[in-house]
């Protein structure tokens, strides 16, 4: 019978102890650092060009609203409401905004009027928004413009297989897989191996059962895995189309690998060796998983089809992209479930045989 109180006590200890272990901190922080690096290195193709505009509008903001609407989803227009023309001029002169629109008080007759104060060397983005000002003024004054135009964004045609042609998204996706593999196959084994090599596992066994101790370590792995993925997503502002599929895939992958991580710790109870040598094996495996993004064929495709991290990568990619590039469904989940089952069954057999 499993006792939740005991699992929680050991889990709390594991989480605290991991935070004090330099080896584990490096393993947890390295992928996050890599994600931030790649995020800064590769620009986001989906990121909209931005222009800053100062608005002086005695009419109460109608021009700003109409200007945003006219720009649509092609440009991100950041408005600053300004008190008077002099303040607006100062902002333009200081390059705090790209241009300013000073709207004249509404007249009973005649066209709506405004003064545009444009910074020297205003960007093409700013120029394109300036061109939209007359229509926005006319609309704000409640009149129909002489001609009507509408800006629509056309997505770029994808040149790479599976639609993941954005290096930023691809690298961050691979870093997420790397993080999950590090947690499952290095952090969890180190936690387990250290308990065995220092004899604290044996001490715990007096007060708790072996399955409770291993369950706590598995839970620590799940928490580290999902927390790291969440942190990477937040810090890199990764655009996830289907969060439930994405985080479900991350959870499935970590669950499938943690069984093998525990097994590694049980069979190889030397935490320093695991820390030193495991990464030499795991990084190529992650690269192999990444190969799934580049439309492999033949034997490589077959091998990748039966590996949990390549199937996990497919599901993660489907969760990320609106195009669901792999359409990975039941087969991927089945492969992950099979590896999960295999890992935990072998773990139970080995743990029983070794009386731990």
């Amino acid at each position, binding site marked *: 019978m499993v006792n939740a*109180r005991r699992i929680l006590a050991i889990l709390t*200890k594991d989480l*605290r102890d991991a935070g*004090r272990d330099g080896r584990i901190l490096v393993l947890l922080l390295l992928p996050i650092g890599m994600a931030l690096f790649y995020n800064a290195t590769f620009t986001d193709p989906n990121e909209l060009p931005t222009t800053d505009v100062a608005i002086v509008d005695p009419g109460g903001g109608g021009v700003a609203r109409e200007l945003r609407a006219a720009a649509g989803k092609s440009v991100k227009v950041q408005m600053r409401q300004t008190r008077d023309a002099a303040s607006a001029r100062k902002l333009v002169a200081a390059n705090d905004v790209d241009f300013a629109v000073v709207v004249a008080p509404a007249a009973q007759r005649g066209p709506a009027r405004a003064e545009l104060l444009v910074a020297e060397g205003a960007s093409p983005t700013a120029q394109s928004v300036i061109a939209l000002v007359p229509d926005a003024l006319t609309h704000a004054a409640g009149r129909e413009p002489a001609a009507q135009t509408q800006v629509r964004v056309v997505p770029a045609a994808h040149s790479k297989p599976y639609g993941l042609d954005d290096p930023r998204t691809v690298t961050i996706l691979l870093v997420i897989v790397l993080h999950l593999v590090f947690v499952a196959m290095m952090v969890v084994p180190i936690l387990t191996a250290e308990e065995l090599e220092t004899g604290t596992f*044996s*001490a715990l*066994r*007096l*007060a708790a059962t072996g399955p409770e101790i291993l369950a706590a370590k598995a839970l620590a792995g799940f928490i580290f895995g999902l927390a790291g993925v969440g942190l990477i997503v937040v810090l890199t502002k990764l655009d996830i189309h289907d969060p439930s599929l994405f985080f479900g895939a991350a959870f499935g992958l970590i669950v499938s690998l943690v069984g093998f991580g525990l097994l590694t710790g049980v069979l190889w109870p030397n935490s320093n060796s695991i820390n030193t040598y495991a990464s030499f094996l795991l990084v190529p495996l992650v690269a192999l998983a990444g190969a799934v993004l580049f439309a492999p064929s033949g034997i490589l495709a077959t091998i990748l089809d039966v590996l949990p991290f390549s199937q996990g990568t497919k599901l993660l990619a489907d969760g990320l992209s609106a195009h669901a590039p792999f359409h990975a469904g039941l087969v991927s989940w089945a492969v992950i479930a099979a590896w999960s089952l295999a890992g935990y069954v072998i773990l139970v057999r080995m743990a029983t045989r070794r*009386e731990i």
Partner: protein
Amino acid sequence: MRPVGDDRSRPRPQTDSGNRTDPRDRDDVTSEAALQKSPVEVEDLTKRYGDVRALDGVSLRTAPGEIFGLLGHNGAGKSTMIRILTGRARPTSGRARVLGHDVPRDLEAIRGQINLVAETPNVYQRATARENLELFCALYGLPKKRGAEALEQVRLSSVAGRKVKTFSTGMRQRLLLARALLNSPRVLFLDEPTRGLDPRSARDLRQTVTALADGGSTIFLTTHDMNEADELCQRVAFLAEGRLVALDTPRALKLRLASTAPALDVLLDDGTDVRLKLDEPQDTARLQQLIDTGRVRSMHSLEPTLADVFIRLAGRSLEDDRSDEAGEW
């Protein structure tokens, strides 16, 4: 095979440790009646690791409140015995019962009533002493203040907030003892508890163990230290290559070895050392003469130590058929 016979009724001399009694004086704890309520009971216990028999048909019982010593070479099976009795290993055959429950099958029923001081300082080095004990308080469902009490008991309160990796060996061993005392165990197993300890820490640990036994806890001790076993234990068992070759009080074991007449080691005023047998008329006459002439500086009775008994048993057990040896003893 039967181990050495029983001698649980002989009085023991008082120790010089003030008002504490010698633990070996409490002979009543190992009476036949007490053994009927045996907290630790092993019957024909065998444990194999592949072709190696770590334990080979061992049977023994302890009594409530007894300090029981299990002695043997490295690899004799002492730690295996404790691993089985604490539910961390399964016997290949035979039966092990602790507090009336089969282990490891019914371990859950006794988990809160047994504890262990391990040979290795298996504490969390990166955690503080307090955190180490609070973890086990949580596991046993005890309030955190019990951890503070246990630290007080082993005089570690002043360093409760310090990381254990900064502790000396003696402090770590005391922390182990504090952890073992958390749940006020009815049976406490100690696996080489004083190995690597300085004399003072070892003495403190022995005093704590004796006090626990006085309080009714049963102590099951494995050790290499014959003096420690002789000093602490009401009864000792010798294991050799997994087999029980002797089980009796330390005194009875020593007396059986000292089957010849008593002898004296006499140090004379000129520094010479004379050994005299008290059943030899000429030696007794010589002794009287030396006393009368005032030449005796000191006299010591020559009796075998527990170590002598063990060496003799272990030596024979390594060379001969141990079942014959056990029968002889």
